[in-house]
């Protein structure tokens, strides 16, 4: 079982702490959503957990400091999907997905049979077969997001950290992308996903991590942690939570007092 255990992570920029004393565990079989306003330190948390960001505290992958792994060994355990940036070159969809096999030694254009199979499976899972030979600069935002998810899945790592994988997607594509992540977790993997849509998080995740000002305010199940007081505390909004049979709905009434 792969497990990423972070304890007391602290990251400072000059005198200001952008992440203080954050402890969090990511294990297989769980979809963890990280929620919080802009600047809460969500991305910093993800980067510190991966050992990409210099930090105090510890982040251990299977009991060993994550920084002691070579980038390749780490990538075989944790797939990392940073916020989506434009690609440098208009590569074909299949090639971009194949890059996800980098840590397995794959060279695009000359894939070994096992790598090619993994790429095909991942293309299929993300409904990308019809687009496989298209150049990525001809895709819509939703299609591109699916390409990035596919290249994260294709690594076949037991853990994944995804930073806003559904940002800028319309509701249909948001739902589709979250469905793919849910399926990945149901297959026995673990994912930590940074999200802005609380209802989407509540619908798909089993654990919510609430962050503000570089701190983790709460970490627990949807039932335990999704409360109207929490929304006010974290986002500074006065909102009503309505339980429906399709999961909780959140109705924002007004920004609360200045927090």
């Amino acid at each position: 079982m792969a497990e990423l255990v972070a304890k007391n992570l602290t990251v400072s920029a000059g005198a200001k702490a952008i992440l203080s004393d954050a402890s969090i565990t990511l294990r297989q079989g769980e979809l963890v959503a990280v929620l919080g306003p802009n600047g809460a330190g969500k991305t910093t948390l993800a980067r510190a957990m991966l050992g990409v960001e210099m930090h105090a505290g510890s982040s251990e992958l299977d009991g060993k400091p994550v920084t002691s792994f070579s980038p390749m060994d780490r990538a075989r355990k944790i797939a990392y999907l940073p916020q989506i940036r434009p690609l440098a070159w208009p590569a074909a969809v299949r090639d971009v997905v194949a890059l996800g096999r980098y840590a397995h030694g794959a060279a695009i254009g000359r894939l070994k049979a096992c790598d090619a199979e993994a790429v095909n499976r991942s293309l299929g899972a993300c409904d990308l077969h019809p687009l496989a030979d298209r150049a990525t600069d001809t895709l819509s935002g939703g299609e591109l997001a699916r390409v990035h998810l596919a290249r994260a899945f294709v690594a076949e790592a037991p853990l994944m950290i995804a930073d806003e994988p559904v940002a800028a997607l319309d509701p249909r594509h948001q739902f589709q992308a979250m469905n793919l992540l849910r399926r990945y977790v149901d297959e026995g993997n673990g994912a930590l996903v940074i999200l802005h849509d609380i209802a989407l998080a509540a619908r798909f995740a089993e654990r919510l991590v609430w962050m503000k000002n570089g701190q983790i305010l709460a970490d627990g199940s949807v039932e335990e942690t999704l409360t109207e007081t929490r929304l006010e505390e974290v986002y500074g909004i006065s909102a009503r939570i309505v339980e429906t049979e399709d999961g909780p709905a959140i109705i924002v009434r007004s920004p609360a007092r200045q927090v």
Partner: protein
Amino acid sequence: MSRWLLPSLIAASIAALFAACFLGSTPMGVSRVLAALFGGGEAGDAVIIWQIRLPRALAAYVVGAALAISGAALQGLLRNPLAEPGVLGVTATASLGATFSLYYGLTALSVWVLPLSAIAGALAATAFIAIAAIRIRHMVTLILIGVGLASFAGALMSLLMNFAPNPFSLSDMINWMLGSVANRGLDDIALAAPFMIAGLALLFVTRRGLSALTLGEEAAHGIGLDLRRQRLAVIAGTGLATGAAVAIAGGIGFIGIVAPHLIRPLTGHDPARSLLPSGLLGGVILVLADITVRLLPTTNELKLGVVAALIGAPAFVWIAMRRRPHG
């Protein structure tokens, strides 16, 4: 990658090198050239082919190939199609290194001084660019820094020329600055070869990382790329290869931008798969440019670097104007 790409580039390379042997101020027929090449024929013909034409063509070829591969690798590392040893000031700094050692007579110490000082200049420039790249968000800024570096190296070169002790060393320096493969022998190539081979080998061994960088540095690191090692490999590889190329031919620019630009669409825009074809095409282009230089009926032979810049600089402007970020 299209199946015919490499075979046709190899065929073009052989054809260009052969053509360079046929053409020249002494007209020679196919049979005389073939006889000279393969050990028969008159002694005079053999001298013309083996000591003048073929070395010169080979020099142009390896220089073009090394510069094009260095350009393709730098473009992959910096994720910018305008990155190139000439534009980034690497060739200018390497020429400065070579000129400096000529000026102070250091080249008399050992035959290795000239290539080594060109390589030292190239490595200093690539290291400077790569260090700047770590702190810079916009790659356009990096190109500007390279242009600044090239101007500075050019200014220092002009300074040396200003103080040139006599017209002979002045003309020597102009040769280095403009770039030429005239009168190059096989021994010049042999001196530079170890460095060039080492640099190119380094670039080829680490080329998979260039593909990974298509995703951007953060995501490339995420899929398992060791960024620090990749940067070092490209700095050292392009420094060695470009320095060795300058040691043979002086400062020749823009080959590194034109060849990869033509090749990239044929290799699925994959920097790794673009390296070898870019190199072959770069070699062919420079041999053809050198043939043109030799055939043009000018009183003073045009410098190869001048012709390369006349073709390359407009191409640079054109690529820059059409550039847009890819989603």
